[in-house]
């Protein structure tokens, strides 16, 4: 991706629309990504939230946000966004809202709401062509409730509902469901994956999306110290490793057309990423599970082979994981 607006870190706004002092965990990767996302979006934002970790961003009487906020319920943040967008449009038509005072409507949910209980309302909003942003902080589980398995949870990881026992040595055996592809299927103007470890790529994507009208959807891989069992200071490093190992491809789809915005020159082995998280520890201790690690590696390689063959991957990365 040739970046137009964000060539160096100096291009990133020094304004902090999402200030410090919230009640989320230290080192929350999702919050880092949201902070960058909000900087790139600018002012006049209304967030519409579904139940999840980020619901604590408005904890009466405090919020670290300088923008507006509406918490709905778990299943229906995109429907809430529809109501707000429509009401803003109506008020503009009636001359009750100056164009300069118009707002950007931004859904913010975790992967549980995005993938499971809120998927229907999201697909409907995309279908209606709602002019909104969707920011999904994908911590790959139901983190707020104590890290239970979601449809985003990767193969071979441990969650609170997939504990490691002799009978179940792998943890989660399902394949991670590819939300990017699910969203892309209706060919909305913009879908992208982003990483807090790559602020320029993230910001440029927000900039590109801002020029398009309609659904603009983002998934940020969100290292989650308590759930991933990693030290808070490791979050950026984990986010970077996910990209460098090829596990988290940075890409965008403009009206359904996919392009990868950052292809690592040389991929690091997935092991580096896996071994630094407690949720994958059972793949290495007490006995190394070579087969599972090789499977994850093979799936990544297959994905990127398809990319380098210049063919849009027919099968998303995660579905390969079980093999």
């Amino acid at each position, binding site marked *: 991706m040739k970046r137009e607006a964000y060539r160096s870190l100096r291009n990133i706004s020094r304004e902090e629309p999402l200030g410090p002092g919230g009640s989320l965990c230290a080192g929350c990767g999702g919050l880092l990504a949201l902070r960058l996302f909000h900087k790139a979006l600018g002012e006049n934002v*209304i967030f*519409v*939230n579904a139940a999840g970790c980020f*619901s*604590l961003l*408005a*904890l*009466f*009487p405090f*919020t670290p*946000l*300088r*923008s*507006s*906020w*509406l*918490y*709905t*319920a778990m*299943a*229906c*943040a*995109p*429907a*809430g*966004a*529809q*109501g*707000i967008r*429509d*009401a*803003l*449009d*109506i*008020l503009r038509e*009636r001359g*009750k*809202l100056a164009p300069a*005072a118009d*707002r950007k409507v931004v859904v913010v949910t975790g992967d549980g709401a995005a993938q499971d209980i809120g998927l*229907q*309302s999201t*697909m*409907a909003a995309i279908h*209606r062509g709602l002019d909104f942003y969707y920011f999904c902080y994908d911590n790959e589980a139901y983190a707020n409730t104590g890290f239970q398995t979601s449809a985003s949870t990767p193969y071979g990881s441990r969650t609170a509902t997939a504990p490691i026992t002799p009978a179940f040595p792998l943890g989660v055996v399902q394949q991670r469901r590819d939300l990017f592809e699910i969203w892309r299927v209706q060919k909305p103007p913009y879908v992208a994956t982003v990483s807090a470890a790559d602020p320029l790529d993230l910001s440029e994507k927000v900039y590109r999306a801002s020029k398009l009208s309609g659904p603009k959807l983002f998934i940020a891989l969100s290292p989650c110290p308590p759930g991933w069992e990693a030290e808070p200071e490791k979050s950026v490093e984990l986010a970077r490793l996910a990209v460098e190992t090829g596990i988290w491809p940075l890409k965008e789809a403009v009206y359904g057309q996919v392009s990868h915005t950052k292809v690592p020159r040389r991929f690091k082995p997935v092991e580096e990423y896996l071994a630094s998280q407690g949720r994958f520890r059972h793949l290495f201790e007490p006995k190394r599970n070579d087969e599972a690690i090789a499977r994850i590696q093979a799936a990544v390689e297959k994905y990127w082979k398809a990319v380098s063959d210049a063919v849009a991957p027919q099968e998303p990365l995660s579905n390969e994981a079980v093999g």
Partner: protein
Amino acid sequence: MARALLTGNSAAAWAARLAEVDYVPAFPITPQTEIVETLARWIHTGEIQARMVTMDSEHSMLAAAGAAAATGARVFTATSSQGLVYGFEMLYVLAGLRAPLVLVNVSRALSHPITLEPDHNDVLAARDTGFLQFHAESCQEVLDSILMAYRLAEHERVLLPAIVNLDGFYLSFTREAVEIPEPADVKSFLPGFEPAYPHLSGPAPLALGAAVLDPALYTFFKYQMHHATENALALYPEIAAEFAGRFGRRYGMIEEFMLDDADYVIVMTNSFASMGKAEVKRLRREGKKIGLARLRLIRPFPHREIQRVLRGRKGAAVIDQNISVGKGGILFSEIASALYGLPDRPPALLSFIGGLGGRRFRPEEFDGILARLEAPPESPEEIARPYLLFSDEECRDVGRYFSVASGEEKSHEA
């Protein structure tokens, strides 16, 4: 003022039109569909300026409705039965947001077994949510109640959403003569919507629906809602009087039918009260001192009005067109709680269940109810129990269905 033959559903649509609603999120369910279809037609012909959006479920529909109201639009929506309970979570959310919109519910009994005709387990399930509730008997009352509901809901001392209920089929699809008020008159009763409360399109950033972790805060906000319903109760007579002055139709919280010298009172709600009134008239002709009280305002619950209307009577029978399985009639319990402690409460207060799934009342059932009120049961068991109205003939019919179902008897079609 125009007079037209309107169904209950089109009367509801007319009210939304006259209220100049900005926004109508919708999802289809029988028997509500005619309301949104009518509004859709008017939007498409340009007769009204509202915007409609068809959502993916009632849950989403209510989310969009609440969010739009919280952004400063006048919102109208409608549902029924399964739709209401599918969106149930959002009823609490909308009331908690203090979003003053109007939701029409076209009552239909809840599955299982799935059916189409009305009873009130759907709408009464919403009684604890914080929605105001008006229950209508006639098509005219549907139209008028919606206009009054907006006035009350949007009042800065109330700011709660409202449900206006009408019975599916019996009212939704029944045509009656309805006075359609002049738009200019409606406008002076219900001016264009200018939200006085902070909303999301206002100049300052606003966080709505923020979490609370202190139980005292949670309690505070819930009590605020309760106090708002008390304000609604205090404001209602004013608004009803203004409505009567302008349109000539007076609506109490309770409609009092032949109550002046009545010793015995039947309490009912909604369209089936028309059947009750016909029976009361007949019994009056037979010399019985009986009347009917029809509850129009269910939330806030008009305790004082209940007391005024029922105190000093010899007996009252509450006919609930709902069943709280394992308890009995929902409104019976509420009415009993309003009367308990009054020294001159009716010595006989009995509970009857009827009208479930649209079951019609039989004239002889009213004779039976009156007979029971005149000679009330004395055993503790009999006083507290709900009487489940059902006839011998229905028993025989059900028996026949079962023998057909089990193959013992051939149906007529076979």
